[in-house]
């Protein structure tokens, strides 16, 4: 490569390298603000703001959903800590027990959030219902098999 082209390539490389580094540092500095939601553990640990609304995300605990008209209450967990979420309104179609959701709300107690909005989070799986059913059965049988093997 001739020296002028080489110089131009180095200059561009330098510019991109510097820009990449600056972006990395800026993103690192704003890391917390780029998080879309707090997990329940952070809420329980007191990291969530106490005076203004925030978002909390986790899995809806199976069997914990209680409905009373449009009022819904359910347990939200990250498999470490669990909080109770209360909400009045229409739930998105993907809202299910065992699925991920993100709720916007305020603290109403150490482990209680009153939500003004509940959004469903999709997992990255795509399959028809019969495959899902088979997987579920296979999973359950796998666990049963493991238990038996352990015995």
């Amino acid at each position, binding site marked *: 490569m001739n020296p002028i*082209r080489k110089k*131009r*390539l180095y200059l*561009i490389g330098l*510019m*991109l390298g510097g*820009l*990449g580094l600056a*972006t990395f540092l800026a*993103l690192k500095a704003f*890391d917390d603000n*780029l*998080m*879309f*939601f707090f*997990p329940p553990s952070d809420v329980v640990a007191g990291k969530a703001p106490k005076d203004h609304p925030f978002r909390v*995300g986790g899995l809806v605990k199976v069997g914990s959903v209680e409905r009373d008209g449009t009022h819904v209450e359910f347990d939200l967990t990250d498999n470490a800590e669990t909080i109770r979420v209360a909400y009045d309104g*229409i*739930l*998105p*179609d*993907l*809202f*299910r027990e065992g*699925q991920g959701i*993100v709720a916007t709300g305020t603290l109403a107690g150490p482990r209680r959030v009153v939500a003004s*909005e*509940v*959004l*469903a*989070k*999709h*997992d*990255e*799986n*795509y*399959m*028809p*219902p019969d*495959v*899902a059913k088979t997987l579920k059965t296979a999973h359950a049988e796998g666990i049963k098999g493991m238990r038996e093997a352990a015995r």
Partner: protein
Amino acid sequence: MGIKRFFHQMGSPQYFYRVAGLWIPWLLGASLLLLVIGWVDGLVYAPTDYQQGDSYRIMFIHVPAAWMSMFIYMVMAFSGLLSLVWRVKMGEVIAVSCAPIGASFTLLALATGSLWGKPMWGTWWVWDARLTSELILFFLYLGVIALYGAIEDRRVGARAVAILALVGVVNIPIIHYSVEWWNTLHQPATITKLGKPSIVPSMLIPLLIGALAFKLFFFATVLMRARNELLERDRNTRWVKNLLEAEAK
């Protein structure tokens, strides 16, 4: 070296114009054929999703459009690099031809994401890292188009555009990894993650056919735009006049 000679020849506007003209009909034909196959497969034959019902069929457009939005950007930035470092004139032409197509695919990804998000998430839009960085990509494309349009001299304009395109490259890994680096409302990648994609083949196939159709469509239309750009730039040269007068006869 056949490949090297081929690229060298493609650097000549006259040669490029002629070869691109030969390829465009084939690329377009193949792309439209694949598009029909992919859409019929996706809308009619692919099974309904266990969680999302039929709304997931929007993915057959949304995911290829989102892939294209990033792919076209990389093509644009790479062509810009060729034009900046090696002063390849065709690099300038390709880079500026990419921008409007890239912008339209980014818009399609954003809009279809919104149309899926409303029933599934419960909202049209959230400011999470994935959606925000994709919106920034859209603005980068608009910036490239506006910058090129604002500068009178095409060669100077193309150089400015190449620098802007290269600067914007930092956004591409941010879009891709946003769902892993931060928690977002947007789900992580289904196809690109290591190991088995968590999608059944009957749903994956129409998705991949659709993606290939979009890619061929991009190649066809970027060549069409590049041919126009060449005519415009070389409008006062002998080869353009001879060519058009021969065509008109």
